[in-house]
């Protein structure tokens, strides 16, 4: 009963005439798939290659690192040992963790109420406010470096984790609000109204209904914010020195004026990105789920 399954009108002479074009269509689909697979792998390799090369280089000696590129060498961990002797990796790493997660938590705490109000109680200015918030991301950070530096100096926030958390929160807030806003907007308003009829206060509405129902979205927003904060270098290099410096500053400290030590720099970089790489790897399912949340409901 193939006709019933495919929904075709059963014609007495159609089985042969139909089969050929269908086969071509199938093979066209197959080759399209193949091309997409090749393209996907190509792009992935292109993106991953520098990281791969950095990891490889970190296991070479300085001499090998600047010699002709080669994959054949005897690996060594001397760079890692030396890098750890020069600076305490764990201190920087701890700063990175505290600052990235702290700023993400703070950004979420601020963004959830604002996204809630924009998504469910919009005014005539809501769209404008959102666009304005996003437009601040187009401002080159260096443009506000001097005023922020002076503010930090006068308030004693220079080289403190708190200061960095504040800056990162402000830096990521527009994106976090915007993302949460789109996730919240996908939630049927009726559900929150039903909650209101059931006697939920605004806080209970958010806590019992909004948060559990948009958790995948909130999680992926948070993950993105963590990654953006972890990778941020401009502010951390300018606003911290010894106490609160995160891993980005740690890497930078290996580019010395007397010349670059590629192998050591690679080892430091590998150690700096390793945690976030593992973190991203472990949470990739959640990231993809969150970013496509709503689209494939």
């Amino acid at each position: 009963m193939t006709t019933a399954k495919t929904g075709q009108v059963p014609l007495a002479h159609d089985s042969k005439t139909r089969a050929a074009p269908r086969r071509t269509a199938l093979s066209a689909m197959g080759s399209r798939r193949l091309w997409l697979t090749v393209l996907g792998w190509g792009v992935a390799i292109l993106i991953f290659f520098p990281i791969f090369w950095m990891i490889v280089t970190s296991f070479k000696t300085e001499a090998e690192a600047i010699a002709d590129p080669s994959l054949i060498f005897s690996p060594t961990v001397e760079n890692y040992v030396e890098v750890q002797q020069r600076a305490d990796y764990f201190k920087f790493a701890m700063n990175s963790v505290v600052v990235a997660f702290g700023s993400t938590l703070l950004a979420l705490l601020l963004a959830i109420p604002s996204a809630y109000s924009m998504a469910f109680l919009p005014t005539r200015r809501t769209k404008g406010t959102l666009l304005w918030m996003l437009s601040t991301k187009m401002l080159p950070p260096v443009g506000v470096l001097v005023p922020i530096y002076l503010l930090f100096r006068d308030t004693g926030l220079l080289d403190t984790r708190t200061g960095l958390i504040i800056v990162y929160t402000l830096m990521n807030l527009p994106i976090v609000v915007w993302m949460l806003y789109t996730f919240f907007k996908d939630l049927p308003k009726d559900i929150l109204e039903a909650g209101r009829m059931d006697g939920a206060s605004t806080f209970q509405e958010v806590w019992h209904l909004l948060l559990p129902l948009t958790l995948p979205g909130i999680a992926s927003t948070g993950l993105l914010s963590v990654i953006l904060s972890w990778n941020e270098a401009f502010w951390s290099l300018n606003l911290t020195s010894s106490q609160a410096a995160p891993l980005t500053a740690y890497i930078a400290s290996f580019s010395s004026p007397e010349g670059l030590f590629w192998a050591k720099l690679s080892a430091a970089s590998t150690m700096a990105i390793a945690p976030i790489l593992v973190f991203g790897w472990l949470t990739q399912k959640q990231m993809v789920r969150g970013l496509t949340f709503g689209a494939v409901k």
Partner: protein
Amino acid sequence: MATLQLKQVVKQFDDTRVIKGVDLDVNDKEFVVFVGPSGCGKSTLLRMIAGLESTSDGDILIDGQRMNEVGPAERGLAMVFQSYALYPHMTVEDNMGFSLKLAGVSRQERRQKVLEAARILQLEPLLDRKPKALSGGQRQRVAIGRAIVRNPSIFLFDEPLSNLDAALRVQMRIELARLHDELDATMIYVTHDQIEAMTMADKIVVLQGGVVEQVGSPMELYHHPRNRFVAGFIGSPKMNFIDVEVIGAGAEGVDVRLPGGGQCTVPVEGGQLQAGEALELGIRPEHLVLDEQGPLAGEIQVIERLGGSTSLYLQMGETSVTVVTDGDVASQVRDTVHFGFVPSRAHLFDRDGLALKSLQRHPLADISRQDNRSAPSAATSH
């Protein structure tokens, strides 16, 4: 006791007035249906009663107390949404018990109340399921169950059956009517489906453009529509409207000239009518009868045979006329048929679309659904 009063209630969104001064009394245990075309403001009015929309002007009173500034939960109402609005991450039991949980009711008491509501709605085997594992009809019942558990003074329904298929809709309609009897509660129900309105309501409120066109029992609206809009909206197929001319008015009613030269006397109050004045005669398709001697004639354009009855769509000059007649009628498309009607079944509408008052009230006009349920003699007791 649960009564609702609306006094000159207004809703304004920026420059647009969606509800333009509505007055309404809903009595205890009454089943009131708001009906009207989409965009008439019926859902907005319901949401204002629920407290989900603010009231721009006028008063909303529940049991005599002004509720304008009172929040939705404190009004003591429960609402069933068109989309059901179940909490997708909670089980049926948690959905139904959510309001009690928020109110701080103990787990044991909560379970007891949920079980009670589940029993009424036959939901007991489904209590551990999540909404996505339920069919449309079951979700609907959970939404109703969630309302029952709150033990509200008034139930509000916002087009609750419009997402169900036709067969289930009929079944749920009967179930809701049964529920109304069982719970003995005041219910307000919004729909655009006039069949739902006719079958379930004690009192129908017909809305158009944010204005109440008429309030009355289903039979009152059917037999004594106040204006052309209500006449056309209530009844299916729609009432026919035929241009007529006044010949004169007397104690027997108004004499009018029909298209094609025929005459009839419609038993309505003539008032200040002048001879020659143009009126519209309204007559329902089911009140037109095929009759070779009939004063009207038209050519059949379309025939719809439903078995038990047949709908004939006729063209009579410029006017389209629908006749609902016997299922076995032998007429065919392009035939010209003659038809007539009993004048007491007809309505007359003036130039402003207002109905001229009938000289005699229809005996069933004041019967409500409650009367239907209690005693047949109630029909004449009014």
